Every structure is written in structure tokens, then in C-alpha cells.
């Protein structure tokens, strides 16, 4: 994509502005700006659509209509909200550390956009191809935790600090299973580049690495603070969590960052596990969009159906459940990779079968974390309090 746009720019400048000679680096910068502009605006548009789509879908799940006032089917609702947020008063608490208070929302938003730079939107449609882009994604996503703790600390609010500490605890816990869950894929592809992984995915990796896909999905739900791991802004406990004291566009940036993170997580998941832009006939960007929408639908569906975990259960799930699962997954996959080396026919199918048979049963292990024995009301006969066991000494005589 980069070279394509660079060449077009070069050509058009040659064509129209012949007098001025442009240095290469200016052209490079211009190209970068154009690509960044396109991606950021694409994501922003996606965020607006997602906010609308989530509200409509949640409404339908709850047998309501959802927002339908502004524009056809209410699609302009989130745009109207965005405009409103921009014009709202910006309140900074007096006790706040003003510099950090202002920087924190930016810290949340920027890394999310950076992730999209390494995502291939088509087979050859990408901004940059770093050879360690999987590592890059994992590294960049952890910056959001810094932003949350900055925001909470700067706003000098106790509830916000609660939220930030929860967020950090969750981020630290879930970084590990999320990172380890990708090891299986890296073993199979023998590359850390997202491009290579996409090209290697003749069969979507969700079928070959079911356990890794599940762990990655749950982990990314936790990292983007979605139900059932939305403890950071559990509105029934912490009101709005770390963004309690934010208002106006700063709050808007947090909101934007969260929804962009949801899109980013869905994109990364569909790139790594659902084959990304791979698909028949139609262009890759279409298939990627379809897959991202499908993943987002599942995320919203889960939000509509499930309550949230408690903090100790969340951490237990990460350390006692998902972490072990990833280890099992790595062991099974590495043995399978050694047995069926690269180049062998139907290699992916064999590895997948091995994973389904040996690794997937361990999924039920994580439900040991939840007290899932059936609720027993069978000891009903047990008299816990002797109601009416004695007779009073005298009764009121009834006429």
C-alpha cells in the first residue's frame, strides 16, 4: 500500500508541479500522512457505526427499539452525540494533576490507532509490515493500562483509583495468557509477522488452535474491559470507574478509545484466527469487515447476556485457568509441529486434529474455577428452625 500511494504521489507531482523538486523524505512523509488519515478516519467511522450498532443490537436483544431518531434507523445518533460531546464544558477537578489529567485520554487513544498500522486489510493492503508485528501488537496494547492509571491518579478520586488498580491487575494477569496463546500460531507459521500468518492461514486458525482462540478471545475481552470482565467501569459498583471526573471531549476520547479498542481486538482476532482478508472472489477488505462485524456481534451478544465476574474470580480465571490452558496448548502444538514438519501435505489438518483431541478437553478445566455444582435444595427436610414446635402456656380464648 505504501509503495502504491508513494508512486501515485510521485507521478502526480511530476505531472502537475514540474517546477519544484521534492525530496524523497517529504514524499515519504506525505504518503504516511495520507495513509494515517485514511486509517484513522476509517476507524473513527467504524467507532461511530459500532456505537450505533451496539446500542441498536442491545436494544433488539432486550426487545427494545434502540436509538432510531437521527437519520435512517438512527445511524446518525452517535454522530450527534460526538458533536454534543465536543461542545460540552470541560471540567477539571481542582485537586487534579492537570498535566497528567489532560494527557491520559490521548494515551488511551493513540496506541489503539497504532495497532491498525500492522493489520493487513487485504493481501497486499497494509501500512507497514514489521517482521515482529505480533509482538508489536502485544506491546502496544499494554499502554492502555498506563493511561487508565494516569487518569485515575490524576483525577484524585478514590473510586477511580479502585478502577485503575483493578484494571492494572487484570492487564498484568491477562497479558500472559494472551501472549502465550499466540505461541501456538507462531510455532506453526514460524514467523512473527502478521502478514505471514495471514498468508499461511489456508484454514482459519480457530479450527486448528481452538484453545488458543478461546483464550485469546477471553483475554482480549478482559483487555478491552468488556463484559464479563468489565470490572474497570462496573457501573453498578464504580459508577464510571476511572473516567468519573472526566467530561466533555476528554471523556469522549476515553469513549472513543474503548470502542476503537473493541474494533482493534476484533480485527486482531479475525486476522490471527479467522483468516483475516482471506476469502473467495470478493476483495480482502470485504472479508475482513465481515469477520470483524461477526466478532463484534459476539462481543455485544455476550454483553447482552452475561453478568460480570468478581475481581478474584477474574484473576483466578487468568492464572489458574487460561494460563494452564495456554501451556497445554503450547505443548500439544509443539509436539504436533515436530511430528508434522513444514512442507508436509495436510499438515494443518493433522495439527488441528491433535489440538482438538488433546488440548480442547482441558477447556472444561477452567470451569472448575466457577463453583458449578448443581444448586442443591434437596435437603429441604432439614429443619433449620423449629417453627411452632412448642405450644404457648395460655391462649387467648376465642369467643
Amino acid at each position, binding site marked *: 500500500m505504501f509503495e502504491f500511494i508513494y508512486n501515485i504521489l510521485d507521478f502526480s507531482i511530476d505531472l502537475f508541479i514540474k517546477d519544484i523538486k521534492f525530496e524523497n523524505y517529504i514524499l515519504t512523509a506525505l504518503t504516511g500522512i495520507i495513509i494515517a488519515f485514511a486509517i484513522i478516519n476509517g476507524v473513527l467511522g467504524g467507532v461511530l457505526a459500532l456505537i450505533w450498532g451496539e446500542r441498536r443490537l442491545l436494544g433488539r436483544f432486550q*426487545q*427494545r427499539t434502540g436509538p432510531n*431518531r437521527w437519520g435512517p434507523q438512527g445511524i446518525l445518533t452517535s454522530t450527534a452525540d460526538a458533536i454534543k460531546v465536543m461542545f460540552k464544558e470541560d471540567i477539571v477537578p481542582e485537586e487534579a494533576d492537570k498535566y497528567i489529567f489532560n494527557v491520559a485520554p490521548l494515551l488511551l487513544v493513540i496506541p489503539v490507532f497504532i495497532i491498525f498500522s500492522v493489520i493487513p486489510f487485504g493481501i497486499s493492503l497494509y501500512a507497514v509490515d514489521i517482521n515482529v508485528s505480533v509482538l508489536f501488537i502485544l506491546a502496544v496494547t499494554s499502554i492502555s493500562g498506563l493511561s487508565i492509571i494516569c487518569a485515575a491518579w490524576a483525577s484524585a478520586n478514590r473510586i477511580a483509583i479502585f478502577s485503575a488498580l483493578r484494571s492494572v491487575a487484570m492487564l498484568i494477569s491477562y497479558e500472559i495468557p494472551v501472549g502465550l496463546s499466540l505461541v501456538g500460531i507462531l510455532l506453526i507459521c514460524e514467523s512473527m509477522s502478521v502478514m505471514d500468518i495471514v498468508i499461511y492461514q489456508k484454514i482459519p486458525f480457530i479450527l486448528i488452535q481452538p484453545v488458543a482462540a478461546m483464550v485469546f478471545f477471553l483475554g482480549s475481552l478482559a483487555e478491552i474491559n468488556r463484559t464479563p470482565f468489565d470490572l474497570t467501569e462496573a457501573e453498578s459498583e464504580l459508577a464510571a470507574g476511572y473516567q468519573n471526573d472526566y467530561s466533555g471531549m476528554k471523556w469522549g476520547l476515553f469513549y472513543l478509545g474503548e470502542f476503537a479498542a473493541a474494533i482493534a481486538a476484533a480485527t486482531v482476532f479475525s486476522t490471527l484466527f479467522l483468516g483475516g482478508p482471506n476469502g473467495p472472489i470478493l476483495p480482502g477488505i470485504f472479508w475482513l469487515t465481515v469477520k470483524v462485524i461477526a466478532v463484534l456481534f459476539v462481543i455485544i451478544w455476550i454483553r447482552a447476556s452475561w453478568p460480570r465476574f468478581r475481581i478474584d474470580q477474574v484473576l483466578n480465571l487468568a492464572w489458574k485457568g487460561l494460563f494452564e490452558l495456554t501451556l497445554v496448548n503450547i505443548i500439544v502444538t509443539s509436539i504436533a509441529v515436530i511430528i508434522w514438519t513444514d512442507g508436509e501435505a495436510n499438515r494443518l489438518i493433522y495439527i488441528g486434529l491433535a489440538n482438538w483431541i488433546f488440548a480442547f478437553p482441558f477447556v472444561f478445566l477452567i470451569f472448575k474455577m466457577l463453583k458449578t455444582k448443581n444448586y442443591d435444595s434437596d435437603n429441604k427436610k432439614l429443619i433449620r428452625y423449629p417453627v411452632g414446635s412448642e405450644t404457648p402456656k395460655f391462649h387467648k380464648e376465642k369467643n
Partner: protein
Amino acid sequence: MLGFGLIKGLSVTFRNLFSPVFTIQYPDKRVGVFGLAKSKNKSVLALFKENPKQILIAALGMAKVKVKIEQSPRFRGNEFVWYDDRCTACASCAKYCPLGIIEIVTHASEENLQAGGNYEIDKFDIDTGRCMFCGLCVEACPYDALHMGTDFEKGNYLRSELVLDKETLISQVKNPSSWFRPQFEENEYDPWTSEVSDSKEAGRHEKPNDEKIKQDWVNKRKFNG
């Protein structure tokens, strides 16, 4: 259970994704082409001939249709219906009001004083801004002069405008609710479609003729004696 409870929950919400909406859009609802045609009782084609722009808006799902919420006939609305010619200014309603928001000022009529005639009403104010619409005043009214109203779209910017005075009560559209007025329910009266402007229809007591009064008096004497 092993996580199957969670999946069961997902299935419940998924099934409800396709079930009809139970909420009501108010004050207007957005409809598509067919919804618009249905609300106007015309075919889509006729509507298109009439106003193509409207159909275009409806195709985007942006056509507005006014919604009138169907309430029960007993609904205690945000207003009162009062028939001045039924009212004898006995002020029962004012006495029975828990909040004391009905203000009545009367003077004796100069014309029919000898015949025990009516009081003339100078002032009949109901402060609906403080009213809780319990309807005890309506229950207290012995001559069915005061009724609960059914309209509830009575928003105002000023508290003083919420006070219903005598002139407003006389001149307004009269859609009395059948709350504590069983005579309305017998006639299958629906306050949402019809109104009762004639005060004679609103009361349950017909004015008795002389013979009946005499008979009643005799009966009462007999019973007590």
C-alpha cells in the same frame, strides 16, 4: 453445568433478538414505507402518487407517525373535567382533597334564594402542579360534577399555568375518565375516542320528579320508624 448455563443464556437472548419489540415509541414513532401506508390506511402506490417525497423519507425509515398511547378508560390523567351546571359548590371536593389544592369561592345566588337555589361560583381553582391525582375529590363529589380527565400531555414552563381556573375548566374539551363513574362504563364509553360535552350525560343521578321524592321520603320514614 460446565458452562452450558452460559450457553443457554446466550440462546435465550438470541431468540429474543427476533421477537417483537414490547416498548412503545412516544410521542411519535419512526416507520418505514409499509408502516406509513398502514397508518394512513392507503396503499403504498396511492401514497406515492400523493407525495413521492414522503415515500422516500419513509423508505429510509424516517417517516414520523403520531402515537396516541391507549390507556384504560379509568386512567387518571393530568387534568380535571368539571361541569359547572352540575356543580352546587358544596365544596366536598375541596374538603376531601388530601393536599388542599382546590380553592372554591362562592356567594349566595340572589335569584333563587327562596327556593334553596344554587350558590354562584366565583372561583374554582385546581392547582394541578401540586396535585397527586389520587381522585378522592372525584369520589367525594355527590353530583358527579367533577371528573378526572384523561389527557396527560399537559407540560408547561410555568407553575402558575398549571392552575386550572374556572374559565379553563368550562371551556376545555371534556374527556372525562370513568374513574369512579360507573355510568360511563355501562355505556362502553371510551374517553380516547369520544367526549362528553353534555353535562346531563355525565351524571348518574337523574333529577327526580316530585312523585319520586315523595315516595322516597315515605319509604325512608317507614324504614326508620
